[in-house]
């Protein structure tokens, strides 16, 4: 017994629906601050990637005749040089490479672990949930600096250790956020419908739970990236970060701060890059939160 359809309807193309993601994207595109932030971030990222081609100077070349020189266009030192006579413009961009990479990779690691861990704990619930979350609490109580210094002592200074250390700390908050969201999503009828259809638990988590908790996760992610960049800068400032001649914004700012009075350009340029990047991520996060917030709908 089938419903009579209008003639030829079988030939009609299926109408494309607008998913919630598409709706959110449209709302985001209407947010001017978020658009500007995205454009600026894209420019900074492109500059970081194209750094070797944007300046005639290599990042580790020392110009003995131009140590701590102010910005000058004749020699194409747009940002001046640092205390060792290296071009600051190209070093700032190389610093952007490290800082952005640390930010994105460490956030990626925390995202992967945090989402899976939090969704599993929240979905399974009961004793397993308590056990898993007590472990998170335990990790939270570990002093972070102590953890980093310990890693450095055991494995030596290595940029990948920074990713590991930062990721290992950042996923804790992510796991808590995802668990909370999962607890509210798993009570909804469509999860029960999936159970009734005989869908396996693992599939329910990956197919239903995770896509539905992703909104707040994405917002938190854009706020984690600047936090990680800041932490990396802090570690580098303390001398626990990247190793010479490689640099990061934190290292550059630390060096600049020491020469603040004699060579202010050494502080101003890296610091403004860092500040602009952090602003942009925060504005983008704000825009995403407004775009994804279901209460707006």
């Amino acid at each position, binding site marked *: 017994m*089938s419903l009579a359809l209008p003639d030829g309807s079988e030939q009609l193309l299926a109408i*494309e629906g*607008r998913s*919630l993601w598409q709706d959110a994207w449209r709302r985001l595109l209407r947010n001017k601050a978020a658009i500007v932030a995205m454009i600026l971030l894209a420019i900074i990222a492109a500059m970081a990637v194209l750094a070797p081609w944007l300046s005639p100077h290599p990042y580790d070349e020392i110009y003995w005749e131009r140590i701590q020189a102010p910005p000058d266009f004749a020699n194409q030192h747009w940002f001046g040089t640092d205390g060792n006579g290296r071009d600051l413009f190209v070093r700032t961009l190389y610093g952007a490479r490290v800082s952005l990479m640390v930010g994105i990779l460490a956030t990626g690691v925390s995202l992967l672990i945090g989402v899976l861990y939090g969704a599993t704990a929240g979905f399974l619930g009961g004793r397993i949930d308590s056990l898993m979350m007590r472990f998170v609490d335990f990790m939270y109580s570990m002093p972070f600096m102590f953890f980093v210094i310990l890693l450095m002592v055991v494995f030596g200074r290595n940029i990948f250790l920074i990713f590991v250390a930062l990721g290992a700390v950042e996923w804790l908050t992510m796991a808590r956020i995802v668990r909370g969201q999962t607890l509210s999503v798993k009570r909804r*009828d*469509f999860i*029960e419908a999936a*159970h*009734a*259809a005989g869908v396996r638990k693992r599939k329910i988590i990956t197919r239903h739970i995770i896509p539905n908790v992703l909104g707040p996760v994405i917002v938190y992610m854009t706020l984690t990236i600047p936090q990680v960049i800041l932490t990396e800068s802090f570690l580098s400032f303390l001398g626990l970060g990247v190793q010479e001649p490689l640099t990061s914004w934190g290292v550059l700012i630390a060096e600049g701060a020491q020469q603040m009075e004699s060579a202010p350009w050494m502080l101003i340029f890296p610091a403004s890059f860092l500040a602009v990047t952090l602003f942009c991520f925060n504005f983008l996060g704000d825009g995403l939160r407004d775009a994804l917030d279901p209460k707006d709908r």
Partner: protein
Amino acid sequence: MSEQLLRVEDLSVHFALPTGFLGGHRPLKAVDGVSFTLAAGETLGIVGESGCGKSTLGRAILRLIEPTAGRVVWQGQPLGALAADALRGLRRDLQIVFQDPLAALDPRMTIGEIIAEPLVTHEPALGRAAIRARVEAIMAETGLLPQLINRYPHEFSGGQCQRVGIARAMILQPKLIVCDEPVSALDVSIQAQIVNLLMRLQASHGLAMLFISHDLAVVRHVSHRILVLYLGRLMELAECHDLLAAPRHPYTQALISAVPIPDPARERRKRRIVLTGELPSPLDPPSGCVFRTRCPHARPICAEQIPRIEPVRFGHSIACHRWQELPATPPAALA
């Protein structure tokens, strides 16, 4: 009726509610000792006030909630004894339609993906084209235009969402559908469409249906038999016509008299049995017969003993100490 599909024996669902800090808990008896059978092609209506355990009963039968006691026997096979994998396999015959049509659909998936989910789960070898053909066929059968396959749930009305829910439940050609208040969230005009759709599907596929509702007028329209539930206990179970024409249980009588008659003159004349008091808390149910605190015919015995379920005659059972003394009320309403 034909072949017996489902037998529910003495089914109970108790939730342990924690009290205080010391890990103590007291049981909430959501469903207590309910038994019935269901045949292929038959609809059993389950009625009762909100909070009486109707939905819990439906979910316990599908083992979406673990029953505390009793058995659910499906085609001669006790569901409680099955391993998780075997149960998952059986789920293709047991489906459910939910009360809130929009909440039952994953907002991040298209209608096509939602309807296909049981199919993809149980027949993983099926190709994309075959899945699409099956989805479009069931969409047409449930009154959805197949062009809407790529739409998302929030773009639909409540009635359409409920059709999607029904299509999802129907795509594997199940033998039993539990309809948990499938129309109570919908407009009256849409209710009629959905109820008629369900009845049409039942007739063409020989489905067995458990139709859970608080609306006796709807239940009466779809059901062959009706089970009246109060505080998780079975009060009366009878053929639809018998129950409405000659209700024997005081609770059923009150329930039927509360249904409005679409005729003002008769509505004014009818004698309505008004129950006094509130529905007791299921955490602290009355001793003996759970209905006795609101029953106009209660006697001391009702507080002392739990009434047994007794047959009035074949196919009509009742849980009341005094049913033989009380008059069978004439059909005041609904006639």
